[in-house]
């Protein structure tokens, strides 16, 4: 997406914005200190599943909003994958008009309460903030985004976007992750008759089955879905498109176009000896049991989970961080990250790594498992690992890890969680062989997120990108909705 600087300039030169800018000199603004999000204490929170971050107060938000210099060319916006008008909503906060702040935010980002919590702001918008140039911490854009969205939600007066006259054209959305939800919302605004199909019994994709409550409370998801329902989106759960009904069946029932946002749900394993022993889980299984099925409340809830004492989590991404912090909360004495590169290469958000450390997670970086050893009941009891060192950079630009000769050692573990990544579920490919796919099983699309081989099919999010981020999935959904509209109006 490209930034529309002309529109932004117009906004920026509005009278109230100029007045607000003149209220305080840049020098005064630069004196402000970046807000610090209040957090529950590590020793308490690592025993429960409540949200770690408690949000910022109105006062703190106002002070933080003042730090923003309202730059003539706001570089932060170019770092945001959906180009949120960042100074636009921040200046509304400074002015004290929270309602408008939410409107500005939501005009480009349908799910700000979620993005404010899970986006890697430190590598997107905040890294582009002018403050970095003068060696000061950037404006806390993520915290302000979260504050704006939460304030609106808690006010009980959420603004529901306007919906155009119904055009009675039926469209189907496959999957209720951030990509599907965004597309559904955008198409509903344009007046389409939108039905969203979800395979699981709950809506939200990774946001409900993967990301834990302590990072993203499910209540937030529930409110977003209610809003979409109010906009007329029909939600159908327990429905696997391609199995419960085929794409052709749905076409016959009048659906004119499809958006596939089926994600990348297939867990990867390392294929090393002993990996099928009992108590070795994929991150997806571990997190699904705990988040979606509430196994942490077993036996009040029926789904069980094994609570390990020595838990090794393999990987260095958000999935691994969520798994290891979950293990700690379930009562592990040792909850360890086993990662084959060093901390500098970790793909997880900085905040998650930082929180994990505070909570007592051990980081065994530059270590890699090579085998698991079980007891007579087939339960894992030991992990054989080896030490690694970093060599030359690989394709991803990160230095390639390589094993150190003779460094193998054994470690006692009773639960292992493999969080090394996921791949697209092959179902879509099985049922739609005419779709062009890459060797990785992702759908090939054009600039408009339209399949290059089947014009009535659009796709976005992880099924197109492999494992990516919430905001990219939402950005895709937005583009897809626009080009679906284009396609459907020209049928």
């Amino acid at each position, binding site marked *: 997406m490209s930034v529309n600087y002309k529109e932004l300039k117009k906004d920026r030169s509005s009278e109230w914005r100029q007045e607000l800018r003149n209220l305080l000199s840049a020098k005064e603004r630069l004196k402000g200190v970046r807000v610090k999000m209040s957090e529950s204490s590590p020793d308490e929170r690592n025993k429960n599943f409540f949200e770690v971050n408690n949000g910022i107060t109105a006062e703190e938000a106002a002070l933080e909003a003042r730090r923003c210099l309202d730059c003539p060319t706001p570089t932060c916006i170019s770092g945001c994958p959906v180009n949120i008008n960042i100074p636009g909503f921040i200046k509304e906060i400074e002015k004290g008009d929270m309602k408008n702040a939410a409107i500005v935010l939501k005009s480009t980002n349908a799910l700000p309460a979620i993005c404010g919590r899970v986006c890697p702001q430190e590598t997107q918008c905040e890294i582009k903030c002018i403050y970095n140039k003068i060696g000061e911490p950037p404006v806390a854009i993520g915290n302000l985004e979260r504050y704006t969205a939460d304030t609106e939600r808690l006010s009980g007066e959420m603004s529901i976007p306007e919906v155009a006259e119904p055009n009675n054209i039926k469209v189907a959305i496959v999957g209720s992750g951030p990509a599907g939800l965004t597309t559904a919302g955008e198409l509903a605004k344009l007046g389409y008759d939108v039905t969203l199909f979800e*395979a*699981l*019994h709950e809506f939200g994709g990774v946001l409900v*089955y993967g990301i834990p409550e302590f990072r993203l409370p499910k209540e937030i998801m529930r409110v977003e879905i209610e809003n979409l329902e109010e906009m007329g989106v029909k939600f159908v*759960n*327990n*429905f*696997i498109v391609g*199995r*419960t*009904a*085929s794409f052709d*069946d749905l076409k016959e029932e009048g659906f004119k176009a499809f958006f596939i946002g089926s994600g990348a*749900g*297939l*867990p990867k*394993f390392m*294929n090393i000896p002993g*990996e*099928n022993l*009992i*108590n070795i*889980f*994929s991150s*997806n*299984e571990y997190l*699904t*049991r705990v988040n979606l*099925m*509430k196994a942490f409340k*077993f*036996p*009040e*809830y*029926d*789904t*069980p*989970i*094994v609570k390990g004492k020595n838990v090794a989590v393999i990987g260095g991404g958000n999935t691994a961080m969520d798994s290891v912090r979950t293990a700690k909360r379930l009562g592990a004495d040792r909850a360890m990250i086993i990662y084959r590169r060093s901390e500098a290469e970790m793909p997880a958000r900085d905040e998650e790594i930082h929180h994990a450390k505070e909570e007592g997670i051990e980081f065994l970086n530059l270590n890699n498992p090579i085998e698991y050893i079980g007891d007579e*009941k*087939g339960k894992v009891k030991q992990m054989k690992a080896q030490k690694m060192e970093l060599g030359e950079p690989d394709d991803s630009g990160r230095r390639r890890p390589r094993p150190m000769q003779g460094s193998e050692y054994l470690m006692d573990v009773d639960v292992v969680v493999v969080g090394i990544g996921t791949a697209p*579920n*092959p*179902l879509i490919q099985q049922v739609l062989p005419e779709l062009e796919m890459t060797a990785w099983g992702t759908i090939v699309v054009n600039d408009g997120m339209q399949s290059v081989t089947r014009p009535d099919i659009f796709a976005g999010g992880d099924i197109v990108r492999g494992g990516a981020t919430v905001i990219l999935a939402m950005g895709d959904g937005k583009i897809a909705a626009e080009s679906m509209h284009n396609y459907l109006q020209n049928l």
Partner: protein
Amino acid sequence: MYKIVQREVLSKDVVKLVITAERISKSRKAGQFVIVKLGEKGERIPLTIADSDLEKGTITLIIQRVGLTSHKFFNIKEGDEVTDIVGPLGLPTHVKKLGTIIAAGGGVGIAPLYPIAKAFKEAGNKLIVILAARNKDLIILEDEMREFADEVLVYTDDGSAGTKGLVTSGVEHIINRENVDEVVTIGPAVMMKFVALLTKKYNIHTLASLNTIMVDGTGMCGACRVTVGGTTKFVCVDGPEFNAHEVDFDEMLLRLGAYVEQEKIAYENVLKGSDGGVE
């Protein structure tokens, strides 16, 4: 939405439920299953679609109570609703005309065997059904199978019905009597293991339908993984049927025991009546 329109107790621990599920009744094929969940706090468990009625838009599930969730299903009443049913899942059985087929089912495996046996008969095969269980009470669907099978043999551990002996005796008996083109077996993992060992000896192609632990049933979690022919497969999407001669049954047996301690706690709670019914 998923209403129980008929409930019939088939034996002491086995119940048959006919449930409204229009979409699934249309799209399902022999060998496929559903994942079901009861109540907000329920767990997701897999159950084979034993039959379906296109006109009424219903599917039939046959459930043996072995633990918490199957117990709740046993106690469900006509008119009640199942909170969640998703499917059809798994790959359908590859049914074709091969000649003579043995369908060997043990205990709770008899229910999932029923639709597959029926499909093989409908494809024009000679069908010999062997049913085996610990005792008479656990032999189910005998009459239903007789309606289409060319022959039905019953074996029990204690001799309380049919011939005293194991399912393998029955299979071997038939193999020695006539030419058999394929064996399909469903039952406890130990039983399938021994059927596979036997038919391997005679070099008869054998399918086993695996009843591993599952969570989502859509290929997302890997709880259902087994080793087949040396590589890891997900039973819910790559199966549930595999070439029995390639399945690592010993590993599967161990993995089925993954939650025995927790399952015991939950089941004892429900038997004590602290959480008896369906919420």
